[in-house]
């Protein structure tokens, strides 16, 4: 591609053919920051971390090889296991709820209502706020002595209990309320753009055929909006793995360590516990999970017909299912509340099956 481009430019510049590397030197000089960022920070930094995760670095990074020791220790640390199961619970709930709420809100706003702009502004404004602000605001509302719980008790329901932030079993749901409040507006916006992109004739045809509104949404509109859903999915998923500020501001991992998340684990081990090796191993695990999620998506987006992507995608799915099993077993053996990961896993498995079928259909069509 670049050859064609260069030739056309060269025609204007003159007949003499300069050395390839020095052609358009300014464009290359101007791209140096981008190249440095991509190669040194993104690729170099990531590789550096992965390599050092096999070392026994403590206070300072050193390259004394210890093999998989850090990973073994990581998967034996209850704090990490709690972090993982917390993130899984938060992730699955957040994914389902954000997608549902985002779509329902967008569908409601798309019903040609008055004051659409006002409603949209209201739903989206939390997205402008930082997670720290979000976390502190909800920490205050969920405060047991002054917040919602107190209000309902004042209304006369004396035994009412709604105190998620101080209860290890439900603290993740306290975070979830805040997280969804902050992020669902964005998904609504994307969904609304997707809905607006659907041809008005589809609706007319559905009406002529006597299909109800809800059925039209479920049977026709949602399948048509598949790319929008996938984009939202990737967006939410990549946000979930970054979950850090909200936890720090709202619960700081408490009560105890019951609302720890992987991102926080990494930061704590790197900068507070002075155990760099653990931090590197944990961050490498985060990277691996992102890669596993990204490969099927990259396949769908860019790799249509590429056998290797298909193969990698299948491996990723198998790994994901295995990881689900491991999560259940781990939760079992640590007798964390068993029900939650199990339900989570069932949902996960259901989603996977659907996804698999979808990928299969995709291959047959394209």
């Amino acid at each position, binding site marked *: *591609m*670049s050859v064609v*481009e260069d030739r056309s430019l060269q025609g*204007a510049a003159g007949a003499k053919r300069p050395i*390839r590397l020095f052609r*358009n030197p*300014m*464009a*290359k000089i*101007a*791209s140096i920051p*981008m*190249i440095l*960022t*991509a*190669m040194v*920070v*993104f*690729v170099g*930094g*990531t590789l550096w*971390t992965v390599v050092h995760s096999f070392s026994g670095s403590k206070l300072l990074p050193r390259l004394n090889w210890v093999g998989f020791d850090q990973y073994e220790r990581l998967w034996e640390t209850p704090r990490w296991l709690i972090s993982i199961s917390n993130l899984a619970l938060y992730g699955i709930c957040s994914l389902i709820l954000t997608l549902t709420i985002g779509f329902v809100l967008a569908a409601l706003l798309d*019903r040609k*209502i008055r004051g659409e702009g006002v*409603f*949209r*502004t*209201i*739903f*989206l*404004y939390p*997205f402008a*706020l*930082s*997670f*720290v*602000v979000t976390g*502190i*605001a909800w*920490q*205050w*509302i969920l405060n047991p002595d*002054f917040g*919602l719980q*107190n209000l309902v008790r004042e209304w006369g329901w004396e035994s009412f209990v709604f105190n998620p932030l101080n209860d290890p079993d439900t603290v993740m749901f306290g975070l979830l309320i805040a997280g969804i409040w902050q992020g669902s*507006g964005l998904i609504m916006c*994307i969904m609304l753009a997707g809905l607006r992109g659907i041809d008005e004739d589809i609706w007319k045809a559905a009406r002529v055929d006597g299909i109800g509104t809800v059925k039209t949404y479920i049977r026709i509109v949602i399948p048509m909006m598949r790319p929008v859903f996938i*984009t939202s999915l990737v967006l939410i998923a990549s946000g979930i*793995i970054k979950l*850090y500020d909200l936890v*720090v*501001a709202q619960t*700081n991992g408490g009560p105890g360590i019951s609302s720890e998340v*992987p991102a926080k684990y990494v*930061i704590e081990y790197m900068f507070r516990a002075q155990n760099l090796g653990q931090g590197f191993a944990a*961050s*490498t695990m*985060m*990277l691996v999970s992102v890669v596993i999620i*990204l490969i099927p998506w990259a396949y769908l987006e860019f790799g249509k017909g590429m056998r290797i992507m298909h193969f990698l995608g299948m491996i990723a799915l198998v790994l994901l299912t295995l990881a689900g099993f491991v999560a259940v077993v781990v939760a079992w053996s640590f007798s964390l509340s068993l029900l939650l990961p199990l339900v989570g896993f069932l949902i996960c498995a259901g989603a996977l099956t659907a996804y698999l079928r979808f990928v299969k259909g995709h291959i047959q069509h394209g």
Partner: protein
Amino acid sequence: MADIAMTGPRGPKPKKRFSRTNIFLYGTLIMISMYYLLPLYVMIVTSLKGMPEIRLGNVFGPPLEITYEPWVKAWSEACTGVNCDGLSRGFWNSVNILIPSVVLSIAIASVNGYALSNWKFKGSEVFFTILILGAFIPYQTMIYPIVIMLREIGLMGDLGGLVLVHSVFGMPILTLLFRNYFTSVPEELFKAARVDGAGFWRIYFQIMLPMALPIFVVAVILQVTGIWNDFLFGVIYTKPATYPMTVQLNNIVNSVQGVKEYNVNMAATLLTGLVPLVIYFLSGKLFVRGIAAGAVKG
């Protein structure tokens, strides 16, 4: 179309204003709006109450006696550790971080986008793909190597270091934004300028830059909210004296020592959220466009 309109009434039958679906529709929307508006309302109300009133009443009640003292206290007296000069310090730190970061990141990204769409060279697409994929890598995997790099160039703990970090991590999304925009500019324009003998920078400054003003506004909105709301980089790459506002807010609110002054905390929270909120309400559709541009392709 016009002659059809003459033949008879067309379009759907006029709907009743208070049909059952409409009541359901607006009812649901208003209920959901309450959930979204509740925290803002509670924050404002709490920040205007005195502490005795907070202890007695409920969080949702409007203030009986409006006092602005918590705001003053949050701005100039609230303590983080030994410093008791309030959030103002964090605010100015954030401003000092924000302005150079926004300028630098947008300058770099716009030139990148321009080079990527009009001056492709061998490997440029590869670097761009890596850049975009890099946006998905968890920050945690790159945080420590960056600490080392900043230490090497002597910017660790300095505002300059944080500016660099923001420019680096803002680059993928902004480059994408600008690349998509410059690709949509007709190529003839670029070629004509080339024929007239304009070079890389001249075309950029005299043709592309003036045309891309709307996308610059979108990028500014995106970056201002993103950088102002950052917490992770602020807490890692600065020292207590240069903490940005979000970090300082968290330290004020979640400090363990002292009596909790909820009204001051809420005033501080609102102060921190004020900048992005003002931008959001002022920019309206451009904000939506910014996040949509960032989202749909990212």
